[in-house]
């Protein structure tokens, strides 16, 4: 109860979060940050053969906010794991800043992970419950070469990161992540990214498990982070409405394939693929009848 009160107070002290269309960027001239050609991932288990991601091509530019939208099981998470380097593609290549990505050794992986970080869907399982919040943030400072910094400088950095996400480090120190609310934990995750300042952030449905009030705050912070650091944000979501509001570019994924991609306006206001149309019609609208026949019907 106390935690929720603190949330409300912080929210009240802050300017209203803004998630609006005018925060989109034109990134068409920016150099390529992450791209892929024919990326495929297959799984074999007990005689079953599944193609989770099927021969996809993509181009994400520096400073771009890209949304990958699709239903559960469409291959979004498998693709995100391949982008993060946690899973190897069965075939196809991924390019980082124009060069073929090489994560063949532990050292090369570590080097790559300095450039790409993630925020996961479930804030409650994203933290090691045995590590204190200080440890989580100190790890980030150590990872960015700040291991030998004096203790007060480290505290200063952690305080700065926490204040970026409207948290007070002094109140968090010596606490465990599970003592925070879901919204606070997800903000702490953004504070972590603020310290790491990667080139690419992969946000895998970061708002799907938190309440609607905290959602706008989290999205606002993600957009601030993109503006502040100039990083590429890959936003994985099943909520096409949300994708429209925050994205520069949208990729629609169905059964492991990209069925449509382009600028957010282009894809969502003038959809071409039947699957995109269905996703749009599935979004419930206040003051309008909701056609449930399309929800359960097929894309065709």
């Amino acid at each position, binding site marked *: 109860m106390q935690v929720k009160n603190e949330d409300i107070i912080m929210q009240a002290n802050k300017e209203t979060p803004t998630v609006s269309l005018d925060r989109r960027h034109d990134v068409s001239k920016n150099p390529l940050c992450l791209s892929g050609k024919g990326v495929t991932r297959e799984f074999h288990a007990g005689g079953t053969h599944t193609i989770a991601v099927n021969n996809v091509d993509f181009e994400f530019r520096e400073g771009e906010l890209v949304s990958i939208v699709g239903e559960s099981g469409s291959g979004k998470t498998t693709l995100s794991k391949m982008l993060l380097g946690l899973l190897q593609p069965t075939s196809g290549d991924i390019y980082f800043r124009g060069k073929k990505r090489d994560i063949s050794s532990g050292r090369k992986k570590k080097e790559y992970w300095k450039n790409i970080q993630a925020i996961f869907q479930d804030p409650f399982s994203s*933290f090691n419950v045995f590590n204190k919040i200080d440890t989580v943030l100190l790890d980030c400072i150590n990872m960015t070469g700040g291991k030998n910094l004096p203790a007060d400088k480290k505290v200063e950095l952690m305080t700065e990161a926490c204040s970026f996400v409207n948290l007070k480090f002094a109140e968090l120190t010596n606490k465990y992540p599970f003592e925070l609310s879901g919204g606070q934990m997800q903000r702490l995750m953004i504070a972590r990214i603020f310290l790491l300042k990667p080139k690419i952030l992969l946000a895998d449905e970061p708002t799907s498990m938190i309440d609607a009030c905290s959602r706008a705050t989290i999205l606002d912070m993600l957009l601030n982070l993109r503006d502040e650091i100039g990083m590429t944000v890959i936003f994985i979501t099943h909520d096409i409405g949300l994708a429209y509001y925050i994205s520069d570019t949208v990729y629609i994924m169905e059964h492991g394939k990209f069925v449509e991609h382009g600028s957010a306006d282009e894809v969502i206001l003038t959809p071409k693929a039947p699957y995109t149309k269905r996703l749009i019609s599935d979004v419930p609208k206040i003051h309008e009848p909701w056609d449930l026949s399309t929800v359960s019907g097929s894309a065709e």
Partner: protein
Amino acid sequence: MKNTVRQVFHSSKFVVGFVIFVAILLLIILYPLFFPGNPLEMIGVGTFAKPGTYVSLYDGINTETETLKLPGAADKRLDSVLKREDRIKMVAYLSAVGADIEGLDYMDTEALMELWRANYDETARPSGMTKAERNYYKRLNASLSSMGSSGQMTVTEHDSSGEEQVVATIGTEDYVNVSDVANTKNLVLGTDNFGRDVLKELVSAAGTSIVIGLIAGAVATAIGLLLGLLSGYLGGFVDDIIMFVTNIFTVIPGFVLLILISYSLGQDKRGAAIVALVIGLTSWTWTARSVRSQVISLRNRDHVNLSRLSGHSLWRILMTDILPYIASYVVMAFILQVSSGILAEAQLSLLGLGPKTTEVPTLGLMMNWAMLYSAHLNGSWWAYFPVILMITLISFSLNLMNTGLDQVFNPTLRD
């Protein structure tokens, strides 16, 4: 952590197991402090002395006596010397001389003696009775006559010149106070086949067996944990190799492997620590398999992925992001391994493949000695029953603690 400990000690099963185990540990630690000495010291020359208090006869003679006129003392004395076989033979004699034995209970000493005194005739030659039998009855009658009378016993010893000197005259009503006798020994559990104090041996053996169990459990858990962590987390080729080896060890019956290794080592090399090591080396497989399955369910958790993205080393991820999550499971596995280590030692020793018999007693060795010297056939229950009880109590307490922990860490099992 504090909350977890509180939860653990709220489990009645864990508390009962813990209390029994701590009581056994206290016995093992405190008993040698109060009753020091080598548990393998042979204090008895004969085998299997019954449990009870032993008083030195020699010292008793030289101890100041008190005269006590206790009612029924003569009958009790007769009762104690008149064995069952003697009574049956007395009834046979009475029957042979035509005495009225109708309704006689041969265990009723008073009635039997009355009839005996009335009918026994040293000169009688009942038909069919051999001379040897008549002599037996003469000796028996003499013994019974002296026992029943209020006579005296004279104790003599040879002095330096070889002449007999009267040392003491003992009457049937002379008693000594046990605390005045210089040498007495209370053998709560008697002695074993080698004349060793079974209680002292049992306490020492329980300690050794628990140490064997702890070493075996630690070795098995360490190997199983390490292989399970690596196999479950790394997967792929490493997993295939580790699981191949694990499956081979699983398919070969562990106990047979244990017997073969113990036998091939030879008795000279089989100290308690070596036996514990061999038990540990042959019983890690199920720990490895179960830890592997736990790790597989953890390795794709978000916090583990985040740790990988933070560039943490394999060792750090295993130790800080995976091991703490399965720690309760590992503790439970360790407790079970300790319990099964103690049982495995007992089984091995029972087969004569346990530790060297000259160094330390173990619960298994005590069972082995009792079996070799036919304690179970000659009714010397004190040589093996307390050992069985001790093994059962240790194993029971460990398993009870394990079940209690399981209920705390796995809420679906709570009552």
